[in-house]
């Protein structure tokens, strides 16, 4: 009797912790292998053969096709420069060093990475209006803004994804990734 009850408890705990933790780990972004660059996070191993097991499980489960190391790199930001979650009821400005790449795109999605609306909120570095001296300044807000502007739905949290195509290899090789400069997302005000 004692052994049966102990076995039952063991199996129950194993199932709960095993399945529960696996579900949590695969629910969103890979829990391991991330590199923090300012407010941005990247998963450098994802684009190569030595992909992180969590990243591979997430990608295979969702049917996604990840960017290869030689194609570019994907950076994700959920927080502003003060550490607050990005919210559609605020106005942001993305400024600072232009990422080193042949072309880059900036996309706003839900925090789960899903498209927010049609057409998707996205802009590319090509033909971007720049400030004096060529400085990068992108307004990110629900209300239209003069100059470079990324539209986001009002209210609700969102995520920014910066994709650098044909980026320097420094972004994908571990020792150099921390030296890369990334733009800063600053909150300008909230309604």
């Amino acid at each position, binding site marked *: 009797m004692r052994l049966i009850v*102990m076995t039952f408890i063991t199996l129950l705990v194993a199932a709960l*912790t095993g399945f529960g933790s696996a579900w949590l780990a695969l629910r969103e972004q890979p829990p391991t292998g991330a590199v923090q660059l300012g407010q941005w996070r990247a998963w450098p191993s994802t*684009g190569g*053969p030595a*992909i992180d097991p969590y990243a591979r499980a997430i990608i295979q*489960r969702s049917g996604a096709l990840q*960017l290869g190391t030689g*194609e570019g790199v994907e950076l994700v930001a959920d927080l502003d420069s003060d550490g607050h979650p990005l919210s559609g009821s605020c106005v942001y400005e993305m400024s600072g060093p232009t990422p080193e790449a*042949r072309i880059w795109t900036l996309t706003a999605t839900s925090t789960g990475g*899903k498209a927010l609306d049609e057409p998707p909120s996205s802009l590319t570095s090509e033909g971007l209006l720049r400030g004096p001296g060529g400085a990068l300044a992108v307004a990110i807000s629900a209300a239209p803004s003069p100059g470079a502007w990324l539209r986001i739905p009002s209210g609700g949290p969102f995520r920014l994804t910066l994709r650098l195509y044909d980026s320097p290899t420094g972004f994908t090789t571990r020792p150099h990734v921390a030296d890369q400069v990334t733009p800063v997302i600053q909150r300008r005000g909230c309604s």
Partner: protein
Amino acid sequence: MRLRGSDIVISIIAGVLLGAIVHLAIILRIPAVARADAFSRYVALGANGEAQLIPHDGKRTSGIGDDPAVARGVCAWDLHDGPVRIVMPSSGLVQTLSIHDRNGRVIYSLSDRAAVRGAVTLAIMTAAQQEERRLTQPDDAEDDAIEVVSSTGRGLAVIRAVTASPAWRERAARAILGVTCTPED
């Protein structure tokens, strides 16, 4: 016989340890058992030797690698009948090419900057096919193809073309449809 407190503690510890094994087993098995993976979804594309466009799938793919400003195309390859040659002509757009194996790993990727004489050419092959190629090909053979060795016999070639503005979408689509993936003779 009564259950003691220490029995419960031992059971829980054993359960957590077993749970860790279950966790690892799930994470490592998912790629093999996943049915909605990209290979399964796109295996039929490119059967006629030309890449085909795939739609954006922002509702499903958690955004990984799915850029609304980028047109994507896929060509599935099969090394059963010999190496497969992928040719991506330059179009003036920023174009990239990645080779995904059956298990969801990117085994090779590059951009159109690597183009030689107006095209990026890859030859995908197994290790055995590469060996055979070494032996049969003359030393002075002129070939621009980059050899990519795959440990899986099948996989996907993924082509991306960045459309800096919506007006370029048609041009990007044409660039992708111009990519060929044919068996080597």
